[in-house]
């Protein structure tokens, strides 16, 4: 349990560090202009990659659940609450 929290904390810091680093390293050279399309669409594709990954995990889980835990599934068994006054 503690290990997991520590692990996630490290992962979070590792993700945040490069971003912070980049900020202070960014220069400002005259004559060379930043392409806002590149920056913005890059950010968009990065976010879409994450969104679709997370989304497929979430919807995959829900779809699997819907298939597995439907009452007509061959392995469906009564929950421990059925027949009790819950």
């Amino acid at each position: 349990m503690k290990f997991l929290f520590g692990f996630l904390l490290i992962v979070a810091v590792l993700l945040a560090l490069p971003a912070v680093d980049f900020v202070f390293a960014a220069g400002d050279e005259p004559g060379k202009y930043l392409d806002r399309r590149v920056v913005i669409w890059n950010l968009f594709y990065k976010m879409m990659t994450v969104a679709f990954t997370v989304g497929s995990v979430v919807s995959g889980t829900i779809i699997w659940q819907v298939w597995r835990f439907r009452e007509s599934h061959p392995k469906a068994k009564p929950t421990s609450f059925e027949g009790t006054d819950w």
Partner: protein
Amino acid sequence: MSGHSNWPEWIYVTVVIALMAWVGAEAWEAERLVEHVPEDAKTIIVTGQQWFWTFEHEDGTKEIGELHVEVGKAYKFEVVSKDVNHSFNIHDYVVLMDAIPGRVNTVWFAPDKVGEHDIQCREYCGLIHYNMRGKLYVEEPSH
């Protein structure tokens, strides 16, 4: 209901928070980069009014409904409005800024290729909002 261990949910929430922190950091960084206007950017005053765009270059020349710029130079738009809210948008260059009466909003871009692009109004401004369109011409430098 309470009484049972809830650690999977705590892990899950931690992951979500970490993810949001990452999203925030990335967005912050990108915004910081695109907001920084280059010092040598040329100013173009963009005026929105029902229902057309007027562009005034630094040398005083005015254009209505179309805008000519040169490739490889940076331009800073000062977006203003004469009547109601509009939103100045060159979608191909991801340029977007609201034209609010009484305010001067700035946004900049540096076209990198010769070509024609659509200019449109993206904030509802009334009857002919749907056709408050213009053209951006990116041309070779004249000198």
